[in-house]
């Protein structure tokens, strides 16, 4: 069937014409309509019906085409849709894709927050490691000095300090060591306090950031989750 309009637009059959159609009667003895006008009228009715059927088919094709354009042709389930509540299915799809977008945003936010925590953890480990190294270094140095002092004292053992000068030298050495340990203790204290201050500073910044920035309301975590449909 073609959908081309082969008929003449001027001569459309109307229900009214059918209502009022009249045919000349045949002569006696057979009482009836003249055959020719009746055939001509039937031909017109047939043409009108063909035209209507064609028109209906082409409109149906157009509806199908538009439907496919709206729903997208990628999904193989389309043939299932036709004849069902298409508008609702269409809405379901729009909502589903919006949900997917929301899920992605939340997942991104979760990944970002995960990265931040991980970075904070790494930096904390670095600082702790540095502090530990620094402390180890100070201790090593102090130990080396102390050992040297002990060795020096042993060297002198066989020869007790006799002169005032030697006694003064030992006192000086002792005083030096005391000062030395005092200084190193001070160094260590300042350094440790500095590290603690940095950590506190971070923590307060973290708290302030957590207060100020509106965090996404939901992020799924690993952890036990309630089962079920809800």
């Amino acid at each position: 069937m073609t959908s081309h309009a082969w008929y003449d637009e001027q001569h459309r059959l109307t229900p009214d014409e059918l209502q009022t159609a009249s045919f000349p009667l045949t002569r006696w003895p057979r009482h009836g309509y003249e055959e020719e006008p009746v055939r001509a009228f039937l031909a017109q009715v047939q043409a009108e019906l063909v035209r209507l059927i064609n028109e209906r088919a082409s409109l149906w094709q157009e509806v199908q085409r538009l439907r496919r354009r709206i729903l997208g042709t990628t999904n193989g389930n389309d043939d299932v849709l036709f004849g069902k509540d298409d508008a609702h299915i269409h809405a379901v799809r729009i909502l589903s894709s919006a949900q997917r977008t929301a899920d992605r945003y939340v997942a991104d936010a979760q990944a970002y927050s995960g990265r931040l925590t991980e970075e904070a953890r790494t930096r904390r480990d670095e600082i702790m490691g540095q502090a530990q190294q620094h402390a180890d270094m100070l201790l090593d140095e102090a130990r080396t000095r102390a050992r040297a002092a002990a060795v020096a004292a042993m060297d002198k053992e066989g020869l007790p300090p006799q002169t005032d000068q030697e006694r003064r030298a030992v006192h000086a050495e002792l005083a030096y060591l005391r000062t030395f340990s005092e200084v190193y203790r001070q160094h260590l204290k300042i350094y440790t306090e500095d590290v603690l201050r940095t950590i506190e500073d971070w923590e307060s910044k973290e708290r302030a950031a957590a207060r100020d920035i509106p965090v996404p309301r939901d992020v799924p975590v690993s952890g036990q989750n309630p089962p079920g449909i809800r």
Partner: protein
Amino acid sequence: MDIARLKSSFAKVAMHGDEVPLHFYSDLFLKHPETRDMFPVSMQAQRAHLVAALVSIVSSVDDLDGLTAFARDLGRDHRKFGTLAEHYVAVGDSLLATFAYFCGEAWDAALEADWKAAYELTASIMVAAAREDEKHQPAYWTGTVVGRERKAFDVAVLTVQPEPRLDYLPGQSVAIESPARPRLWRYYSMANAPRTDGSVEFHIRLIDGGAVSMALTSHAAGGTDLRIGPPVGSLRLDPASGREILMVAWSTGLAPLKAMIEQLAGFPRPPAVHLFFGARAADGLYDLPGLEKFAAGHRWLTVIPVVSGERSADRTRTLTDSVMRSGTWSTHDAYIAGPTEMVQDASARLAAAGMPAAQIHVEDFGWSEQ
């Protein structure tokens, strides 16, 4: 009911994967917009839960006892979400619409009737269980945060005052929802034996990117009202066994075991308890000073701290290695709590060393330490 046909049609529908729950929730929210507010913003985890529940129900649809047990728990569990009887009707409608959509031409009146019958059976068990549960306990408790102490870089101890009083057995856990993260519930174990003042401690481990743990460790200040679901979980002491006890905890897996230790302290003659407590680094053994002090006053308790070191690829293995090296445990009761791989590794190795399965009690905390 043609059960074989029901199962085969479900298998065909399930082949569409995540599309199925996605379609179901969109259909439900379109027809009943008021239900959207009962769910979190991200529905990713929720969709997985729905599919898991459907798989359980469909696979046990011809085993009435199994189905009843599952649906009863599910029905009780849904009370804290504010689920009402009319929601079950709405869910049923959308579920059938979803199956019809994915079954396509295979969907007919007989199949629809079977699905309807299966759903109505499940829903009626859930509703009945929820109604029964209503007589015994509230849908949820309000837990006011009365204390928060940061014990380590990533562990905080929350003290919460539940209203009304929360009765539970040491070893059990509850789902918690923070007002900062509505509709997201996470399970935490009570970390103390029931007290006269009713207060409860939770050990919260900060999980990288974890919304609820972050809300609880950082934002839950004093006075915050949390929602607490009913106590659940099968981990609990077997006081009649008379056997000595081996406990293995990794990080905050300590919580339920600590509650059980406190419970044992109330026994006239507590059995000997060996507690292996593992973490990545020394500061991860967040509760060690408290435990050691407790052990000094209770000679039946021995605490063995184990640190794996940051570098180790298979961290929790260090803990189980240390347990297996330290003795023969087959005549003990074992209580194990922590990340999935540790719980599995420890129970498998204890079983292999001759410990009967009935003596191994575990709580899988769900996260991974790797």
